[in-house]
């Protein structure tokens, strides 16, 4: 993100320069060598901490995913290679949960993008009370996800006394197993409500990069507001949009808390997501092998999503594509 957004305005001029600079730096003097060594030493503590808190757990869960490891039968632990992955990938449950996750991800991120853009434009254009508008619109993002999810559950679930079914004159529970469509809607609504401000914030940073002169010049040339938005603002802030989308997509794929709470502690199989699946294997069945395999697969999915986006980012920079 840091490399893309700031270079935005000068991207056309900068791109070739950077390439030259890298090539010119090839012969290294003693002094530079010493500095580099010092640099490594200064980074070392941070690198060690990173390895301890990220690399080790990732490596350990990968190792566990190759074992038959069930905490209920600690003596039966054995190495079984990729068997756990075969089990997961051939299970219809993994694929239905994967589909649920994708549905929630695609729909909620699309709605968030549209609403977030509107919110960003409002925050950008606000003539008075700008600080107030920005603060107010950020409130949902400041609320703990579990709390927000409970608020939605209590509003929509009839047995919990929800007022919304009552208003709509609906007697059944909107978020139980028998009503998958409304269950999805409520989860998506909760997600959108909670994370649109985050999207808006990232888009606002992109909007600030669109030079006013360009927009004014276009207006003088007779472009309508719609044309100015689509032809100037959107292309110029494309990197910011993609970064915002990447962040939200990765987040949405790992969705756990809202779906778990609104699914009444994960008991509504119709809105079970891959994260809940992994949680069930690990903490309900205490099957560390299978659960770790699910976690590793989620990690791989996240990597694939990130790769697609980063490739997309690299090729779509204005002035290069």
């Amino acid at each position: 993100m840091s490399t893309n957004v700031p270079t935005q305005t000068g991207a056309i001029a900068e791109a070739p320069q950077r390439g030259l600079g890298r090539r010119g730096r090839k012969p290294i003097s003693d002094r530079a060598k010493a500095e580099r060594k010092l640099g490594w030493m200064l980074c070392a503590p941070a690198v060690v901490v990173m390895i301890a808190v990220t690399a080790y757990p990732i490596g350990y869960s990968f190792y566990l995913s190759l074992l038959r490891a069930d905490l209920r039968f600690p003596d039966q632990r054995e190495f079984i290679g990729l068997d756990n992955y075969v089990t997961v990938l051939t299970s219809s449950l993994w694929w239905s949960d994967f589909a649920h996750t994708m549905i929630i991800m695609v729909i909620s991120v699309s709605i968030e993008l549209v609403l977030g853009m509107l919110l960003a434009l409002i925050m950008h254009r606000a003539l008075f009370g700008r600080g107030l508008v920005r603060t107010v619109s950020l409130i949902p993002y400041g609320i703990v996800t579990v709390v927000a999810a409970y608020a939605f559950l209590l509003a929509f679930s009839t047995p919990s006394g929800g007022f919304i079914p009552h208003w709509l004159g609906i007697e059944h529970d909107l978020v139980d197993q028998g009503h998958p469509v409304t269950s999805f809607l409520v989860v998506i609504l909760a997600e959108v409500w909670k994370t649109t401000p985050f999207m808006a914030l990232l888009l606002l940073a992109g909007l600030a990069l669109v030079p006013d002169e360009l927009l004014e010049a276009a207006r003088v040339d007779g472009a309508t507001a719609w044309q100015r938005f689509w032809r100037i603002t959107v292309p110029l802030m494309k990197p910011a949009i993609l970064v915002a989308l990447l962040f939200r997509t990765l987040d949405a794929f790992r969705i756990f808390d809202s779906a778990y709470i609104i699914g009444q502690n994960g008991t509504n199989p119709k809105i079970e997501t891959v994260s809940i699946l992994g949680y069930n294997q690990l903490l309900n069945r205490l099957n560390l092998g299978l659960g770790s395999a699910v976690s590793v697969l989620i990690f791989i999915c996240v990597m694939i999503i990130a790769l697609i986006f980063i490739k997309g980012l690299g090729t779509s920079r204005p002035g290069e594509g």
Partner: protein
Amino acid sequence: MGRRGIVLMGLAVLAMALLAGCGGSSGGQGAHLNFWAYNEPGGTFAGAAKRCTQQSGGRYTIEFHALGNDPDTQRQQLVRRLAAKDSSIDIMSMDVIWTAEFAEAGWIKPWPQAAADKVKQGTLKGPLDTATYQGKLYAAPANSNTQLLWYRKDLVKGEAPKTWDDLIATAEKMPKAGRIEIQGAQYEGITVWFNSLIQSAGGQILDGPDKVSLAPQPTEAALGVMAKLANSKAADPSLSSQKEDQNRLAFETGQAAFQVNYPFIYPSAKENAPDLFKNLGWAPYPAVKNPADAGRKAPIGGFNWGVGGYTKHPQEAFDAATCMRDEENQKEFALKGGLPPTLAALYDNKEFVKAYPFAPLIRKELQDAAVRPQTPLYSDVSLAIYKTISPPASIDPKSTAAKLRDRVKNALESKGLL
């Protein structure tokens, strides 16, 4: 006073609170026992802890900690700590289906001979079976539970139906099709139903702790009953998401003529629907084939008190657990919480039977109840079953039976994603 002063004062208060906290837990005499249990809505489990603390004369203090409301959450909370060898779980309330799993993993202690003999004395056989694994007593049955067929005497003329077919036919024939309230959601409750049906049809889910049975004929008969009910006019439209409490509510609000449920609905109806309560009738749990079998192979549930495998005060814990299931406490569980006792003596107590009029029927059902499979992998087996048979409306007896055999077999090998 500046900002610094405030910070210092805050620290002082915090330190005092910490010191007081330490003093409290180590200063008292006698053993401090943590009792992790379902927070029975009538407050009787917490009440038992209090009563036994007083009766112990300072030998031990039982502190009550509430677990979640549904059995799955309760199990999760306990299992997570027990797998990490938590020594602060001294006594716990265990659903009857956890015995084998907890015993095999060493999470609960087997009862020493003397204490076990005390528990066995006067306890009904059904509940005792649920607390026994491979010949050893692993828990003290605190209360039992079984389902009856409840019906409205103002709607059902004559005798209540004795078989499932009869029940469905009677309900469908009612002028305003009489609904049958039963548990159809994807959770333990539907496994309970299936287990009773298959045993009533002469089959079994497992053959011993690690072998699938599920013989085709009884399995298909059991699944056939479920599919028939789910697709009949007598089914509640939200059958596929109903659990015991939704059944109770629907019945209390007058939406159903029948409900198959535990006796907790009795005190509840008395309180919430006095008019309906006057016409509340009960009958033996329906049979699959033979009307004479009604009341046989009914579900059996309830709670047993287990003693934590890593407790530091085992002797006191066994004594406290024994106390918390004595006659006086079990009477409270039954009268205030609607939970049937495990001690035979109570069923002969006239005063008790007067307040709990279906007691003789419950006692009869408990003698030949359908105990759920006793295997350390029970939770996996049950998951495999309920994920396969719910929603009941989409059951096709033949193909569902085949799928069921497959998944249960996988579950027993600790394989497969559930």
